[in-house]
């Protein structure tokens, strides 16, 4: 309904604009600027409402957008064109065992994927053990991840010192591992070169062959450096004594192929798991985009919420304009009467006040845009939050301002135009 009102309003305004061509726009603009100049302080205060409204809309959207972008960046730093497969809950005799107990992914599935999925480039299993890493008299609880040699490429992990393990070491279940910064700090102290040193994990001695480059914490606050990485064969055989994988991680050949890769993998895995037509998957495939979508939904809600609150302040600013325009019309009743007496028509008066309110809101809007951009940058700088000012939000605020000027200026302007010149002239 309000939208419809707005449309009618704009349409009528356009018609008036066309009809009023006899009095040119530059004259009207001059008049409006003149009237605003006469009441500089009041104009400024009225604009302040719009300025704050627009600035907060822009700043809030920038913060929302910034958080969205940072989540996206975080997720893309988790891997390249990542497609991951994890087993889902299985039930044995009517008892749901939960996702953690799910055991369905094996080396057979890996081979099936490798053979049947042309859109998958890198492929690695992931097995995970939890326990204490021990070095001399120190120990630290951490996770031991097992993978093959593709894993570092898939997960975008770099080796800052030493080397990664080789195919031979994977085949031979060699007792070697790479160590994350956090584990290094807690077992050896920061800056120590651990290469060649030996640690024990669940009583199994591992020789450290490389140091993983720090990735910091992720969006969820998890420390991405708190891990050990070893050949999956070693973890399976020597630590867990199991043949299952916690998940299979893979990279699609390019960023556009993740969906295709996921589909191919689903086919391959259903075949390899001998699932009948119509039965549910006993695994779940997630692409990076899925993660981005899920995570973004929270910040989307946040953005909408912040934007809505800021939008309300913009609305209040608009009402401020309406209020001031009403005051202005009342205050200038005699001026209106005089203008009518010397030949101003109703539409001239209407346009004069309408243009005045549009000018108020547009000038306020433009200042607000700059203040908003400045405030966003300042917030980004002081709070160390990522902020992204969207050009769309700038354009949107500007349009909203113009509409506000028309909408809230219309009624006061019409009131002015509808005055009886005689009454107006003698108004005290």
């Amino acid at each position, binding site marked *: 309904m309000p939208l419809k009102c707005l449309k009618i309003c704009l349409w009528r305004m356009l018609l008036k604009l066309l009809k009023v061509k006899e009095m040119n726009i530059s004259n009207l603009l001059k008049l409006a600027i003149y009237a605003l100049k006469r009441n500089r302080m009041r104009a400024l205060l009225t604009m302040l409402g719009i300025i704050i409204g627009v600035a907060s809309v822009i700043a809030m959207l920038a913060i929302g957008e910034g958080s969205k972008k940072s989540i996206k960046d975080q997720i893309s730093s988790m891997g390249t064109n990542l497609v991951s497969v994890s087993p889902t809950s299985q039930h044995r005799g009517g008892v749901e065992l939960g996702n953690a107990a799910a055991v369905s992914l094996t080396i057979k599935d890996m081979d099936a994927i490798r053979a049947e999925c042309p859109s998958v480039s890198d492929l690695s299993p992931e097995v995970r053990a939890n326990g204490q890493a021990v070095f001399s008299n120190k120990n630290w609880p951490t996770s031991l991840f097992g993978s093959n040699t593709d894993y570092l490429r898939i997960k975008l992990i770099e080796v800052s010192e030493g080397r990664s393990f080789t195919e031979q070491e994977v085949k031979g279940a060699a007792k070697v591992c790479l160590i994350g910064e956090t584990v290094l700090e807690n077992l050896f102290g920061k800056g120590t070169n651990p290469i060649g040193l030996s640690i024990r994990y669940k009583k199994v001695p591992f020789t450290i062959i490389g140091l993983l480059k720090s990735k910091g914490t992720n969006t969820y606050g998890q420390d991405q450096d708190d891990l050990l990485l070893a050949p999956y064969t070693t973890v399976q055989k020597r630590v867990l004594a199991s043949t299952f994988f916690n998940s299979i991680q893979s990279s699609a050949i390019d960023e556009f192929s993740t969906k295709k890769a996921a589909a191919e993998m689903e086919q391959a895995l259903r075949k390899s798991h001998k699932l009948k037509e119509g039965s549910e998957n006993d695994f779940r495939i997630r692409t990076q985009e899925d993660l981005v979508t899920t995570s973004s939904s929270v910040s989307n809600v946040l953005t909408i919420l912040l934007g809505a609150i800021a939008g309300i302040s913009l609305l209040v600013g608009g009402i401020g304009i309406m209020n001031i325009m009403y005051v202005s019309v009342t205050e200038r009743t005699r001026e209106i009467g*005089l203008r009518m007496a*010397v030949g101003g028509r*109703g539409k001239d008066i209407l346009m004069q006040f309408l243009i005045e309110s549009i000018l108020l809101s547009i000038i306020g809007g433009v200042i607000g845009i700059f203040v908003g951009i400045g405030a966003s940058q300042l917030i980004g700088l002081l709070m160390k939050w990522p902020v992204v000012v969207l050009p769309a939000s700038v354009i949107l605020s500007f349009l909203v301002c113009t509409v506000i000027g028309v909408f809230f200026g219309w009624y006061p302007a019409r009131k002015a135009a509808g005055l009886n010149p*005689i009454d107006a002239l003698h108004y005290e």
Partner: protein
Amino acid sequence: MSKIIIEVKDLTKEFHVGDVTVRALKGVNLSITEGEFIAIMGASGSGKSTMLNILGCLETPNSGSYILDGVDMSELNKDALAALRNQKLGFVFQSYNLLPRTSAIENVELPLFYNNKVDAKERRERAEKALVRVGLKDRMGHMPNQLSGGQQQRVAIARSLVNDPVVILADEATGNLDTRTSYEIMALFQELNSNGKTIVFVTHEMDIARFTSRNIVFRDGQILRTEDVKERFNAVEMLKNLPVADAVETSKS
């Protein structure tokens, strides 16, 4: 015989105030020829203000006709009436009605703003000329609050002249001024009149009416009598005879 500027026939006007119908004008006939200086007189409630509003095309009569410079205004709509006011009429009010915080010259330019045939340059030139004509050559940039009452009224007169109207309508134009300033304003009106301007002047002051050439007296919505002024005052002469003490202009209201 000179041209008839204003021709009014059987004009009536009624107002409804609540349940009461006030018959402000009850059949007025009037014609004014070019170059006349008319004073419309009468007590308050006599209908003289309503008459002036209709003459000024600010109000339309209930019946009767009003032809202004060959145009029958009863056939015109609101916008056309505004255009008529813009091109054929000049107004001078008791309370000057200047735009505050707006310089004299910009006040004078105002009517031309609503005339699209006049561009900014011509507007400025004509306003300057009008101000020179009322003797405010040195006050063009002054704001109304920097001008005395008499000067403000001169600005208003310049504003009424700027569109070169066929008739100037003045509503108690000297009502807010002291005697001396009133005479000065009347001197200005007389000078404009002697240069051919038709002026209709509403007043209730007998002595002011004697500066004009013809007096029309209203009572109860009708013309009581019309009389040519026999011993017409000359404002310039009268000013010379005023005591000198009064010469100091103090009125700034």
